[in-house]
């Protein structure tokens, strides 16, 4: 997608400026209560301008409007990218023709006429008209329109790579596809609505923060509105009149300076930018809520294969049981793997071919019938009917304990030597597959896992962030423990059956933890739906993609870690800018209060009163001080737009350290920066004669 949607920066800015003006409509402004107050202030100051025109009042009025516009601009900038994205996707949804396949007959219909469970055919060069599941054939598909990934992917019937997406193009071969989505509810439609809809609803944290900001706004409005009463009381006591600046524009300027406009103006931009950052990493979130939840995740459930280990396990060695010839073991292993299309199965066939020179056997040879691997039996193999030469044979290969049960159930013995070999292999981090022929154990196949480079460091970072990782594997506990230790995960579930995942998620949730998991298979769907953050892989089945609340278009399982980081960044940016916004108020008091009250209790006209001492920045005049403060307040919004869009830098250094660092930068910095900024602006405004 990132490859497809090229966005011109200048175009983005131009569009954002137009949108910023459009957002001045009260219907838009009322959505953001803090900025709505500024908006009302702008209108009041404009009305006051008509009543009492002066250069000063005009400038205040203009800067109040600018404050509104800058906040709108920030939001429009953040929205721009997503909008361009959605527009590009929408163009793809043009009416394609479909070749409906009905009882052996083909008919041409438009894509919108396809209903659930209809079958259609796609040949090389066809655009797939609707989401569906391949029921026959295998094809390479160019999914770059959706994922931005130019390398074609393979889609085949059965298994976990059967889902195809409307709008993508078949580049080779022919497939028959069963439609799985209603027209208008396709994955493409969902993507568009995700991109557009995710920003519409406020997330729980955003709502809570908004309440805090609105309360502070109310407080500061009251602080300012009660000031004229206190000032007038003092004026009467001092026997002075009109020395305190409490004209409407000054009070409005003070209100706008004090209420948290910096965070108020950038709040929605931060949220949108968070979703956008995910999107640029090719992850689509169904809601902002999901992104936020990602930041809170306590536990990551990760499948071992593909996430923690590279690709697939490979068979590297055959170890025969005592009294069994290696060739006999190789022969049985080959039979058991002939029709086994899993990568492990193929690797056994490859090993046998290379080491023992067996090749070209057909499944039909020996009239065997293949027994596929299931998560329940955890074995695969071949059944041979009773032939003239002897009794029926059943060859099995599979997890050690499963084969042991199988053998012992038939009265066979499970040799101690095999048991030792199995645990040796497991302890070394390999996976043993035991091969049996009826009640006889023939030997062990060693499968090896290769842990991905750098994954250990990622898990260490996650641990510092407070996220525990749990590896899920079908391996036996020994193998699992070895790999877990090598990869540095915190915990593992061995012998995992699909329902174990769901069980573990429920159990962790009952303990109050938030769980994220990534999955692709149909049997992952319940767990994906149960997890607080469920990331479905785009290559996964339709069921998985429906169940998750995020879709990873790259189908890269390590992406989950980035998702967590982005979620955290989103909250950190909000918190940091809130702190910054409030800390800014200190300097603004030291600019505006002496400006308002500097002449109070002056001994004679023209002299300063005691409160002039608060003018620690030595600002030129009351007017320059007030104007500098309001200009600073408006410009800081613009200055922080890049930070809001980019997010506060995230480091995995533990909560207390992160807090200390951000408090120094945004808390202490928030107190100091405006002192410097306001002073510089004051000097500038005086130098260009904008104020007396």
């Amino acid at each position, binding site marked *: 997608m990132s490859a497809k949607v090229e966005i011109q920066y200048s175009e983005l800015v131009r569009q954002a400026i137009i949108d910023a003006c459009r957002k001045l409509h009260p219907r838009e402004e009322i959505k953001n209560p803090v900025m709505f107050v500024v908006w009302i202030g702008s209108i009041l100051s404009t009305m006051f301008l008509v009543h009492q025109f002066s250069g000063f009042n005009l400038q205040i009025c203009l800067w109040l409007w600018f404050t509104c516009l800058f906040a709108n601009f920030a939001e429009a900038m953040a929205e721009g990218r997503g909008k361009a994205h959605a527009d590009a996707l929408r163009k793809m949804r043009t009416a394609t023709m479909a070749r409906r396949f009905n009882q052996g007959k083909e008919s041409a219909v438009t894509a919108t006429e396809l209903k659930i469970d209809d079958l259609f055919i796609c040949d090389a060069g066809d655009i797939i008209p609707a989401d569906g599941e391949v029921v026959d054939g295998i094809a390479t598909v160019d999914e770059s329109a959706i994922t931005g990934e130019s390398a074609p992917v393979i889609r085949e019937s059965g298994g976990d790579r059967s889902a195809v997406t409307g709008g993508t193009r078949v580049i080779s071969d022919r497939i028959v596809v069963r439609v799985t989505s209603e027209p208008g509810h396709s994955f493409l439609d969902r993507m568009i609505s995700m991109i557009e809809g995710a920003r519409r609803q406020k997330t*729980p*944290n955003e*709502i*809570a923060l908004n*309440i805090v900001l609105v*309360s*502070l706004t109310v*407080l*500061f409005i*009251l*602080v*300012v*509105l*009660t*000031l004229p*009463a*206190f000032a007038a*009381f*003092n004026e*009467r*006591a*001092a026997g002075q009149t009109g020395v305190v600046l409490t004209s409407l524009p000054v009070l409005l300027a003070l209100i706008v300076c004090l209420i948290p406009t910096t965070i108020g103006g950038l709040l929605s931009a931060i949220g949108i930018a968070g979703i956008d950052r995910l999107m640029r990493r090719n992850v689509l979130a169904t809601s902002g809520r999901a992104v936020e939840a990602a*930041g*809170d995740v*306590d536990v990551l459930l990760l499948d071992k294969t593909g996430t923690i280990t590279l690709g697939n396990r490979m068979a590297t060695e055959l170890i025969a049981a005592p009294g069994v010839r290696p060739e006999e073991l190789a022969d049985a292993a080959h039979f058991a793997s002939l029709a086994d299309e899993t990568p492990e199965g193929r690797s056994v066939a490859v090993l046998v071919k290379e080491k023992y020179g067996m090749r070209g056997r057909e499944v039909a040879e020996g009239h065997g019938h293949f027994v596929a691997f299931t998560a329940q039996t955890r074995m695969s193999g071949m059944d041979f009917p009773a032939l003239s030469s002897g009794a029926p044979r059943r060859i099995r290969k599979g997890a050690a304990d499963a084969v042991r049960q199988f053998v012992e159930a038939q009265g066979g013995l499970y040799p101690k030597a095999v048991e030792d070999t199995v645990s040796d292999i497991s302890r070394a981090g390999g996976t043993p597959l035991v091969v049996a022929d009826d009640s006889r154990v023939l030997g062990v196949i060693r499968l090896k896992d290769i842990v991905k480079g750098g994954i250990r460091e990622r898990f260490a970072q996650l*641990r510092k*962030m*407070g*996220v*525990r990782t749990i590896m899920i594997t079908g391996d036996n506990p020994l193998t699992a423990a070895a790999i877990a230790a090598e990869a540095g995960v915190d915990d593992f579930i061995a012998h995992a059956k699909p329902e174990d995942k769901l069980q573990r998620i429920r159990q962790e949730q009952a*303990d*109050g*933890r938030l769980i994220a998991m990534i999955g692709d298979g149909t049997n992952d769907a319940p767990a994906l739906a149960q997890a607080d953050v469920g990331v479905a892989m785009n290559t996964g089945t339709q069921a998985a993609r429906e169940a998750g609340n995020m879709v990873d278009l790259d189908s890269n399982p390590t992406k989950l870690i980035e998702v967590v980081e982005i979620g*955290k960044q*989103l*909250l*950190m940016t909000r*918190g*940091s800018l*809130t*702190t910054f916004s*409030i*800390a800014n108020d*200190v300097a603004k*008091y030291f600019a505006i*209060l002496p400006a308002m*009250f500097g002449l*109070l*209790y002056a001994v004679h006209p023209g002299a300063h*009163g*005691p*409160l002039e*001492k*608060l003018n620690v920045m030595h600002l030129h005049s009351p007017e320059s001080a007030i104007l500098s403060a309001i200009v600073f307040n408006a410009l800081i919004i613009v200055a922080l737009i890049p930070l809001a869009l980019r997010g506060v830098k995230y480091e995995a250094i533990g*909560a*207390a350290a992160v*807090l*200390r660092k*951000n*408090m120094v930068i945004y808390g202490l910095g928030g107190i100091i920066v405006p002192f410097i900024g306001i002073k510089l602006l004051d000097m500038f405004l005086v130098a260009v004669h904008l104020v007396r």
Partner: protein
Amino acid sequence: MKTNDIVQVLVFFILLIGLAPLLGRYMARVFTGESTLLSKLLAPLEKAVYRSGGIQPNEEMSWKQYFLAVLIFNLVGIASFWGIMMTQAWLPLNPMKMGNVPWDLALNTAISFITNTNWQAYSGENTLSYFTQMAGLTVHNFLSAATGIAVLLALARGMRRATVQKLGNFWVDVTRSTIYVLLPLALCMAVVLAGQGVTQTLSAYAEAQTLEGAKQVIPLGPTASQVAIKQLGTNGGGFFGQNSAHPFENPTPLTNFIEVFGLLIVAASLVFTFGLMIGDRRHAWCIFSVMLILLAGSFAVAWWAESQPNPVTANVLPQLEGKEMRFGVMNSVLFATATTGTSCGAVNSMHDSFMPIAGMMPLWNLMLGCIVFGGVGAGLYGMLMHVLIVVFIAGLMVGRTPEYLGKKIQAWEAAWAIVAILLPNILILVGSAIAVSVPAGLAGLGNSGPHGLSEILYGYSSCAANNGSAFAGLSANSVFFNLSLGAAMFIGRFGCIFAVLAIAGSLAVKKTVPASPGTFPTDGLTFTLVLLGIILIVGALTFFPALCLGPIVEHGLMVSGRAF
């Protein structure tokens, strides 16, 4: 600063830090229903109370039921006490034949004592009968303090419990607080005070012949019993108008020491009780430290300011205007900052007479909401509202939905915490602004100019924070002040209690999330500093403009030799 002063201050703080955890542990045992040293003696009394009230001690309440119980209990208290005052002339124990109290003053006083404020727009010795003092003031000194403790207990249970609705039984909490904590402590203290010369009699006022031959009436009364609970329960309502500056209420330096200590000890110990109840003693120490720093800070600034020469009074030192000779500067300032840091409000000197900056510190303590140990219960739950906001902001800053003691802090908690913090602030600002703008408000002022503004700010701050001390100088016994300050007290008290219980109820229902390295720790130096910083900044941002036009400008004028 004499060595003597410094030794006293050190002894005071060391005793406080040493004894608070002990009393805290005792109270934790009491409130969790474990047996204590006093159980054998007092359990029958406790049972008798339940039996006579028809209370099922094991029946717990949801937060709404709990609030309703608080409200009904207090409304009945206000009505009955109001009734007693308006009919005291016809009631017994009235040797001085005091007349009935006017309706507005009586209403103000009733609200004042039920809300643990003890704002007094009257002088006890010329307004109230002994019966009113004993059956009204003293009783509510106990009950209002017990109410504060009860609400704190409900909050602590809400934080500790998980996935339940119930927060405990209000009647049990009030009964236990009164019988096992307040009564024994008050009894001991009253005996010591009486031994030191605080009056304790039901006879009529004494008459004496002065050296000049004039006749003088010397007010007496059952003082010691009331003063003890006035201090311990952070009530602060004096038996006499001069409060603890009166020689029959606070006769010696020793009683003074006991009284300052008494007003802090229960509130300070409750921090540790809370720590034990939530199972996090390190967190309790952090909160205790923040309170201690705020108290010591305001005391230090005030003591320093009060030791500066005043050009308006020819730079005479020490400044003894408004202070009792037997206490001196340090003990007056310590009493002033302690009584305003807690919501006690007893005074042993006139804060109005302090230097502007020294007078600003008690005012500042009130504006922060009396959270420096605070009113028994009330101060800590007020502080915990700040803690929730700190946790909320800090939680966001570390990139995680904020959690406090394993509970997620979401919109509901954030909203009610900020209501509890801002409600008193709004009452102070709006109330004061109205008072300085209307003739009825200006009529009560003893001074014009910035000092007058300080008097009014102090009045509303004192009432909104349920403190009850006065800056003096403000004649507050008028319909305007009685009603507006009464409203401030009522809203300030029950608004906050509602918010606190709403939070407690919501927290109780939530699951407890186990802490992880990604959780912001609430038991370290970082937390302590951030909490301190946020309290100071939010307080300063709210009140700096008003303080500028009050004590700060007054200070500027005083330095140049001008006064109002």
